C-alpha cells in the first residue's frame, strides 16, 4: 500500500517482523531470516498513533488453551437462541461472523467447535495485554477488552527504537508471552490507525501515511467512517455519497447544510483529518444488560420479570462502578431482528434498580405486544454516584426505597443472588 514517488520523508529501511532485523528496502524477503513479513513505508518513522486489536480474541485464547483446536473452526457463543460472540479465522472462511445468530452459524459451519464464553478468562488475558501496552507508552486508550489506541510519540529514546520497531517487538512479545496474536495499525491519527489495523488481519501490521490518506480513502465506502452505520449510509447514498471520495469532492458548506455538524465531521474525516487525541481515560457512556430468549416472548407480563432482572443487573453494575444514570433505555429486538429502543428520562440520576425498573416498565407498557427475541435495559447520561438519589419534596418514597435496596444488596452479597426474589421475578 506504500506509494512510490513523491516521498517527502527520508527512506527508512524495512523491518523484518520475524527476526526484527533491518533489511534493504528493495528486498522482497528478509535477507537475514528469509521471512516475507517485511514492514516498509516511507513515513514509517514519523507516525506514532497506533491501534492494536487482538485477532479473534476469545477464539484465539481458547485455541491457546486447547492446542487440539488449532486447526478446527472454533466459535465462541451458543445457546439455542444466542449469537456468535467471536469466531476464529477458520470459521470465518465458512462465512461465519460475530453477532450472527447461532442457527445461521450452525448452518454455515456444522463442524465448528462451540465454546461457551469464559469472560473471566478473557478479562484476565485482556488485562495482561493492556499491561504490556502500558510498558510501551502511558497513553493507552482502551476501546474494549481486546483493542486500544496508543500514542507512542516521544517514546523512541526510552525504547531505543523507532515507534514502528517498538510495535513490531510488541506484537512478537504478545505472541510468545501471551500466546495470542494482534494486528497493528500505525498512522498519524486514530481514524486511520484503526482502519490500518483491520487491513491484513490476523497478525497484521499496516501503515497508513499522511501523504496517501486522501487517495487511500477515495474508493472506500462511507461506511468505513466510524459512526456511519447502515441507516446513515443509506441516507448518504440517497444524497449521492456512496464512497468517501464522493464526500471529498463535495462542498463543505453543502455537507454542513445537509447534515449539520455531522456533515463537517464527515468532510474532515474524508480528508483524513482526525484531531481526536489518544486519551487515557475513556469515559463509560452507558451501562446495560440484555438477554436473548430461548423462545420468542410477546406478552408484557412475561417480559416484566426479565426486565426486572436486567434492571437489577444494571443497578449492580452502576453501584460497582460508582456511577449513576439519568436515562433509562429499553431495547427490544423483534423476532424479525428489528430493534426498537425507548428511552425515559428520570428527574434525577439514580443507582436504584427500583427506579430503573419503573422507567423500563413504563417504556415496556408503551411497546406493542409482539414476538420478541431479546430484551435489554440500559442506563446512559451517566454521572457520579454522589449525584444520585438525593430526593426532594416531591419524592416522598425515596428514603425507604434506598434503605430497602441496600438491605437487599447486602443480603445478596452475603447469600447469593437468589437470597431475595422480588414479586415480579418470583416464579412459584
Amino acid at each position: 500500500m506504500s506509494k512510490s514517488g513523491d516521498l517527502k520523508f527520508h527512506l527508512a529501511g524495512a523491518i523484518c517482523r520475524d527476526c526484527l532485523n533491518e533489511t534493504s528496502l528493495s528486498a522482497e524477503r528478509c535477507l537475514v531470516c528469509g521471512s516475507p513479513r517485511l514492514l516498509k513505508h516511507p513515513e514509517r518513522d514519523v507516525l506514532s498513533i497506533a491501534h492494536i486489536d487482538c485477532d479473534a480474541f476469545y477464539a484465539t485464547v481458547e485455541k491457546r488453551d486447547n492446542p487440539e483446536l488449532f486447526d478446527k473452526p472454533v466459535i465462541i457463543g451458543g445457546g439455542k437462541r444466542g449469537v456468535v460472540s467471536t469466531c476464529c479465522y477458520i470459521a470465518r472462511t465458512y462465512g461465519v461472523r460475530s453477532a450472527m445468530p447461532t442457527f445461521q452459524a450452525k448452518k454455515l459451519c456444522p463442524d465448528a467447535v462451540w465454546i461457551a464464553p469464559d469472560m473471566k478468562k478473557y478479562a484476565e488475558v485482556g488485562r495482561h495485554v493492556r499491561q504490556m501496552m502500558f510498558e510501551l507508552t502511558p497513553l493507552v486508550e482502551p476501546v474494549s477488552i481486546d483493542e486500544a489506541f496508543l500514542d507512542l510519540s516521544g517514546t523512541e529514546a526510552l525504547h531505543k527504537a523507532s515507534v514502528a520497531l517498538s510495535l513490531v517487538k510488541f506484537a512478537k512479545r504478545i505472541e510468545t508471552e501471551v500466546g495470542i496474536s494482534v494486528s497493528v495499525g500505525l498512522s498519524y491519527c486514530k481514524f486511520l490507525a484503526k482502519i490500518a489495523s483491520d487491513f491484513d488481519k490476523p497478525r497484521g501490521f499496516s501503515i497508513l501515511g499522511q501523504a496517501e490518506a486522501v487517495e487511500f480513502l477515495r474508493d472506500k465506502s462511507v461506511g468505513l467512517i466510524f459512526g456511519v452505520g447502515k441507516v446513515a449510509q443509506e441516507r448518504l447514498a440517497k444524497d449521492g455519497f456512496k464512497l468517501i471520495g464522493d464526500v471529498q469532492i463535495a462542498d463543505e458548506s453543502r455537507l454542513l447544510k445537509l447534515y449539520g455538524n455531522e456533515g463537517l465531521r464527515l468532510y474532515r474525516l474524508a480528508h483524513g483529518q482526525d484531531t481526536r487525541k489518544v486519551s487515557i481515560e475513556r469515559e463509560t457512556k452507558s451501562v446495560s444488560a440484555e438477554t436473548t430468549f430461548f423462545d420468542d416472548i410477546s406478552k408484557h407480563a412475561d417480559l416484566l420479570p426479565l426486565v426486572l432482572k436486567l434492571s437489577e443487573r444494571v443497578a449492580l453494575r452502576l453501584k460497582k462502578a460508582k456511577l449513576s444514570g439519568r436515562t433509562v433505555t429499553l431495547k427490544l429486538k423483534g423476532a424479525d431482528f428489528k430493534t426498537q429502543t425507548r428511552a425515559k428520562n428520570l428527574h434525577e440520576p439514580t443507582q436504584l434498580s427500583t427506579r430503573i425498573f419503573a422507567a423500563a416498565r413504563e417504556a415496556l407498557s408503551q411497546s406493542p405486544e409482539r414476538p420478541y427475541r431479546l430484551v435489554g435495559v440500559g442506563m446512559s447520561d451517566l454521572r457520579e454516584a454522589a449525584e444520585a438519589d438525593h430526593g426532594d419534596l416531591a419524592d416522598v418514597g425515596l428514603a425507604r426505597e434506598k434503605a430497602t435496596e441496600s438491605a437487599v444488596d447486602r443480603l445478596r452479597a452475603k447469600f447469593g443472588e437468589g437470597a431475595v426474589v422480588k414479586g415480579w421475578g418470583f416464579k412459584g
Partner: protein
Amino acid sequence: MKVTLERSALLKSLGHVHRVVERRNTIPILSNVLISAENGQLALKATDLDLEISGSVAADVAQAGATTVPAHTLYEIVRKLADGAQVTLEISGDAGQMLIRSGRSRFNLQALSEGDFPKLSAGDLTHHFTLGAADLKKLIEKTQFAISNEETRYYLNGIYLHTLDVGGKTMLRAVATDGHRLARVELAAPAGASGMPGIILPKKAVAEIQKLIEAPDSEVFVELSTTKARFTFGAVVLTTKLIDGTFPDYGRVIPANNEKRLIVDRASFRAAVDRVATISSERGRAVKLSLGDGKLVLSVTNPESGSAMEEVEVDYDAAPIDIGFNARYLLDISDQLEGDTALLKLSDAASPTIVLDREGAAALYVLMPMRV
C-alpha cells in the same frame, strides 16, 4: 349569519377565549375561534383540546348562524377598531369567508366549517360547589409559583386540589411543588366539595383561571370529576382536562418537628436577601443564613465575582445553625407571605424548612436547603 354588537363587548369576550389558542397549530381548526349567533347572543369558544373557554355576549342577531375564523387575527382586528364602534360579523353567500364591518373598515377572514370544531365533552361532572372568587384566587396565587415545569414528573405540572379533614373540619387544599419548594394553602371547604376526588389542575388552566377572576366578590361555580373540571365565571366557562397522575403524598415531606423558630421582619428580610443575592451570578446560587442568638447573618460567596453579607436582627434563641437556600426561592416565598413578620421553622442544614406568616396560618411553604 349576521350579527352586530358593540366593539368593546366583543373585544372583552374575545379576550377571554383567544388566549387558549396556541400560536402554532398543526391542526388548522385549532387556530380558530368558534362563533355562533342565536337568540340575541353571540357565543365564542376556543380550545387547545386540553382546555376550552367559552363566553357569550348580548348582540343584535339579524340572522342566526355559526362559523370559525382565526382567533388571533380576529382579536387583533377587533382590538384595533375604534372604541365605541359597532361591529358586524356576517357570512353572506360565500361560506368560505366571514365579513367583518365596522365604520369604514371591512375585513374578509378565511373561515372553516363550524361542524369540524372539536368539542371537549365534559362527561359526567360528579361534584360541584360554589367558591368565592377571592378564595379561588388565593388558592391559586399562593401556590402557582411552585408548580414544576419539569416534564419527567408531569404530575407536578399543576395544582393539586383536594379536601381533607383537619381537626373535624373539612378543608379545601391547594398544593404545588417542584421538588425544591412546596406551597400549601387551605380554606374551609365549601358545601358540596366534601368527598370530591383529588384533582391536579394543569398549569395552563391555572393561569387562565387566574386571569378570568375579575371581581373578587363574585362567585365561581366549580364542577369536577376525576378527569375534567369546569369553572363558570358568569358568562365565561372554562373546561379543562385534568392531569392523569398521582400527586405525591406531600404530607410526608412537611416536617412536623422543626424546633428552631426564627421570626424576622418580612420586608427587611426580603430586602436583605435581595441585596446580598446581587453578588450571585446565577439564580441557582445559595444564600447562606447563619443564625445565632438574636442575629441572622445573610451571606453569598461567588468565587467569580466576590462576596456579600448583611446582618439582620431577628427573634431567635435556639442553637446556632448555618443553612443555605436558593435566593430566588426565598424571594418568591417572601412575596407570597402577607404578615409583617415571617416565621421560619428549621431543623438542620440538610432538612426541609417551613416558612409561614405565623403559627396556624392558612398558607404554608416548605423549602429544601442547598448545600453551602
